[in-house]
């Protein structure tokens, strides 16, 4: 994973609650075995509507998505996070996220920024009133700044550290091999094993 560095980019307002991962990336694209190249299929069905917010020229090349509560609910498909990342997004700001989507995003360096609903509302309003306005996301300082608005956000220390350092979590865990092996010695004998 690449290190997460402070960036500024256009913020697009997707003013909707409960956006599920089926909308972010429809099922027909889940048959691909590649990890990259999902960006063109982001919000595939919604993009067919010329009035859809991400079709507006002002939001072209946007790197921050501001949206409603429970973003990324539903299916566990990491393809949702991949498609946002591949389309250029580096952060999604919402009052809450689907648990699996949030985890998936953190694993690939897409920052889920959790802010209180009223602060997200203010950011959404600003992005709608001033199309093309840029947001700056600073993970080190845990701060989002957009126009006159500037909010500090919370994130657990572990996730923040992994993002800032671009850590390979698997390499970290593999260093704990002795502890994993010791746990395996304690596992009950009745647990199932399935030989190939």
């Amino acid at each position: 994973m690449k290190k997460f560095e402070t960036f500024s980019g256009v913020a697009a307002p997707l003013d909707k609650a409960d956006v599920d991962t089926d909308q972010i990336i429809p099922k027909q694209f889940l048959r691909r075995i590649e990890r990259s190249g999902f960006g063109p299929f982001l919000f595939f069905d919604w993009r067919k509507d010329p009035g859809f917010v991400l079709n507006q020229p002002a939001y072209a090349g946007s790197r921050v998505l501001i949206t409603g509560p429970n973003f990324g609910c539903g299916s566990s498909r990491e393809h949702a996070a991949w498609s946002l990342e591949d389309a250029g997004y580096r952060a999604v700001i919402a009052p809450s996220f689907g648990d699996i989507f949030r985890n998936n995003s953190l694993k690939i360096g897409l920052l889920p920024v959790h802010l209180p609903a009223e602060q997200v509302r203010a950011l959404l309003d600003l992005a709608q009133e001033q199309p093309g306005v840029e947001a700056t996301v600073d993970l080190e300082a845990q701060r989002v700044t957009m126009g006159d608005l500037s909010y500090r956000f919370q994130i657990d220390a572990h996730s923040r550290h992994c993002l800032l350092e671009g850590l390979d979590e698997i390499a970290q865990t593999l260093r704990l091999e002795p502890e994993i092996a010791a746990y395996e010695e304690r596992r009950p004998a009745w647990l199932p094993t399935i030989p190939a």
Partner: protein
Amino acid sequence: MAQTLIQKLWDRHLVRSTPGEPDLLYVDLHLVHEVTSPQAFESLRLAGRRVRRPELAIATVDHNNPTRGGVEAADEISRKQMATLAENCEWAGIRLYGLGSRQQGIVHVIGPEQGLTHPGMLIVCGDSHTSTHGAFGTLAFGIGSSEVEHVLATQTLLQQRTKDMAVNIEGELPPGVVAKDVALGIIARLGVAAGAGHSVEYRGSTVRGLSMEGRMTLCNLTIEWGARAGMVAPDETTFAFLEGRRHAPQGALWQAALEDWRTLASDEGAVFDSEVEIDARELEPYVTWGTNPGQSVPVSGRVPEPHGETDERALRYMALKAGTAIQDIALDRVFIGSCTNSRLEDLRAAAEVVRGRKVHGRVRALVVPGSTPVKLAAEAEGLDRVFAEAGFEWRDAGCSMCLGMNPDILQPGERCASTSNRNFEGRQGAGGRTHLVSPPMAAAAAIAGHLVDVREFGLVPA
């Protein structure tokens, strides 16, 4: 200190717990399917890593396989994904129940069916409906492909401890009301995000009275209100289901396991972060009218007045007007299947309604058994003929029209009563409109040609 079942299950899988860091949990069983695993295997190989414990994983093909015509009926890209799974399993030494295998089926159907899902385990899968396995008193939740890779490489997972919630359901279910309705009733009351950050234990007399199939349906739908894991403490119903299955412990190990499993309940006085009370006697058969599983009403009701943009958009998408009686909504398709409702008990309940009747002329109806063993067992008791004589199509096992990755999809504008788990926009096919219902309700709807109250249909014994 008194512990909840959730805490007990979490603690028994702790490899390492360090303040300020997520816990490192050991995974007892990793379920693998073709859609969310190829990128994980590829990344593993590119890093020069191996699969740590291939014998603690099992793979199957379920999401994109055709349900008739075998692998030849799949398009090239689907065939490639299925072939990639086979190659990856061969490389890693993971047992694969592929197309043509007598054990193949939906990953959440075959785990319990093969006796791989025991109480007290930690089970993960790159699929959000992994919560299904919680029905056995096991901690089970869906993960993404990066986490799949982590499990393949280390047999462990880093997780922040969840909060725990009790859903206490008391009372006898009214006639015609089944586990699916309990789940839809809960989501209607709590909303689709209420469970975020939580694991859930379903408790109470209603839950104790459910079969294992019913408990699986209930736990399966936990993710639809935002909680990753839902569970039921194991009891005699659980043990009776498991005993004698292929991968269940035997002899002295069975006795030792039983002794352990009987300790898997929340202690008296254990405190949950939150508790919800549900009166089962107030539940009815539910029908979703909108585009998330929380947008439902009892079948006796009407499409509600919209509250806010989400509701208005849902009504537009579903082409419904507020005030329309649910039972006046005509259907084009009926789908009986999915990891929510495709087990033998579900098919029997639907067949009971269908027996001796005909599918309405306007409706195309599909039954997709959850696994090849379910299909064979249903055929052995003649359920396939009941469905076929009524005009249902009887298919091979898979996820099928639950998510429409295979050729089984709704056409734009088609309206479907479905026993699946998600009524999201486009879920069953772009432009398709989904009404979630129970298996008996779906069966009744297929015959009536519109949504209908299975109780008034004169089919369910009072």
